[in-house]
């Protein structure tokens, strides 16, 4: 019944790469985060292609910001480097101009509100949709502003929007954020910034609670997923996981982005 509904929705929406991946693969979805313009300004596309070639299912492309509140030291550092490399939203859209001829994976842009506002929120959505971006994650866009101001613009350009939930998020609020989200729901495994030190990737109890709620969206678990063991552990309950910090680390001193990506992904999936 659930699958049938999804198929109908999929047909109605014609094309949603995000929905498609959950329909066709359905489990152990691996979403990899990478910072645009890292490790080199021109590595954005190279990394994306390497992710596609080596088994990632979704790409979360980070737009670097000077003050990334939700990020731990590793992703902060990659953002600073990317900014120093000259990365901007404008530059990113130039790099992505024809990426769809080479990358077919769903791609979501992750970033903070301020640079997006300066770019112009509607222009940002229009340009993202035009190059073939599938969805957005803007962790500091609160649901009140989403509902009253920005959500309709995001919808107008047929972009998915993903909200975050944490172990502290009440059940009522999880339902609300799930309802507002399209594509997937981002379950932060433990209250922390990205790459957080909490040893246990995600409490089973929390993930089981989310699973038991039979949410509208598939659930991807992020923060603290770093290797095969932690990936497999969350995939036993959730629909998949997001890896960011560990991947960024693996690129840190890389001289061959493609080879490093391959090594990293085979260590997670292998």
């Amino acid at each position: 019944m659930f699958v049938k509904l999804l198929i109908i929705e999929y047909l109605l929406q014609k094309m949603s790469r995000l929905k498609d991946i959950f329909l066709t693969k359905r489990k152990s979805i691996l979403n990899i985060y990478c910072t645009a313009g890292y490790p080199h300004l021109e590595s954005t596309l190279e990394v994306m292609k390497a992710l596609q070639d080596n088994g990632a299912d979704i790409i979360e492309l980070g737009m670097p910001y000077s003050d990334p509140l939700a990020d731990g030291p590793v992703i902060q550092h990659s953002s600073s480097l990317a900014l120093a490399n000259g990365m901007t939203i404008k530059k990113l859209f130039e790099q992505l101009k024809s990426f769809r001829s080479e990358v077919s994976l769903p791609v979501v842009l992750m970033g903070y509100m301020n640079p997006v506002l300066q770019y112009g929120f509607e222009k940002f959505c229009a340009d993202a949709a035009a190059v073939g971006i599938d969805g957005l994650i803007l962790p500091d866009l609160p649901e009140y502003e989403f509902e009253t101001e920005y959500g309709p613009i995001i919808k107008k350009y047929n972009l998915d929007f993903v909200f975050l939930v944490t172990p502290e998020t009440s059940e009522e609020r999880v339902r609300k954020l799930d309802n507002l989200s399209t594509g997937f729901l981002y379950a932060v495994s433990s209250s922390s910034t990205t790459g957080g030190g909490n040893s246990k990737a995600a409490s089973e109890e929390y993930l089981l609670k989310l699973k038991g709620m039979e949410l509208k969206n598939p659930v991807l678990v992020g923060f603290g997923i770093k290797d095969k063991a932690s990936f497999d552990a969350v995939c036993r309950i959730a629909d998949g996981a997001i890896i960011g910090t560990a991947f960024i680390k693996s690129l840190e001193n890389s001289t061959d982005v493609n080879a490093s990506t391959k090594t990293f992904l085979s260590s997670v999936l292998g």
Partner: protein
Amino acid sequence: MEKEKQSYASPDEQGYYGQFGGAYIPEMLHQNVEELRTKYLEIIYEESFQQEFQYLLQDYVGRPTPLYFAERLSNRYKANIFLKREDLCHTGAHKINNTIGQILLAQRLGKKRIIAETGAGQHGVATATVCALKGLECIVYMGEKDIERQAPNVARMKMLGATVIPATSGSKTLKDATNEAIRDWINNPNDTHYIIGSVVGPHPYPDMVARFQSVISEEMRNQLLEKTGSELPNYVIACVGGGSNAAGAFYHFLDEPSVKLIAVEAAGEGVNSGKSAATTQLGTTGILHGSKSLLMQTEDGQVVEPHSISAGLDYPGIGPLHAHLFESGRATFMSATDKKALTAAFELAKFEGIIPALESAHALHALRMINFNKNDVVVICLSGRGDKDLAAYMMAMMNNNQ
């Protein structure tokens, strides 16, 4: 446009002053900020809270602070100039009004661990002080660069039992210390209260901090009535970095249109020098540290590092209340360069025997920029004392024979 006359003092339910404010926070902070939002007003207006708050303000902080008629300064500038002596508060600045309020709030929320950010160290010291007073663990984030520049305040915090953690990200100054404090709060969602030092941050912080600081203008009204026969002055002047002393000094005059409100920002080496902190002149609408306000940023939306000789004004944003006062024209914004602030500081020292904080010296410079009538009553918020700025004053004496 406005149908019902809304008070300038209070934001709407979502925390907006006009178009500025709100709570632009990641979900990881939602629970804590929402808890504050739903409880802060109820808690701070409880009778027992108010009793303890007033008691500590009086016997521990030393309130009410004097409203001092500065006779020689008045003769010089041909107006009736009063100084609101926040420099006489315990710890040497107005900052403690807010930390006393927030520590009482944190206790009532059952929090065991206090975090704070600090630039020059004044808010850090004020926070470490109230944590010692209440026996709560205190962690202060301070930019690595500021730790080097402000060794005495670092020592004070440590002596008071606080742990000072260097912020090594970004530009290693106040904005980054604020980022680190927010990240700490994300990582410690259950037992920790974040004492923000200014009228910035996500709703309800700007309103909560303004309410705690509003004791400044509440006292001013009573003292003016006694000294001049009217509660209302012609001018209230205060410096603005994030804007907490200005918010406190303006608060009970915001809806009194006859009172001119003057906010003085730090122009650094000059508004157009590239080394300035004059946010209303250089900033555009943006989001920083959880609220929408005016912000110094590049055209790509990256936050620009400000500059001021005064570490307390060295912040790339401004509280949303002040952005609204600026945009609506309710307050007049001026700026003072590093040099003008130094001159004003030496002038106050020589004319009145008071060495002001460099921050407050910016407010004093406004005296030179306004043409007063001789009957005008002018109140300047002397937000802090100058002990912490002695190094800068010594340097100035060496360079200029002040």
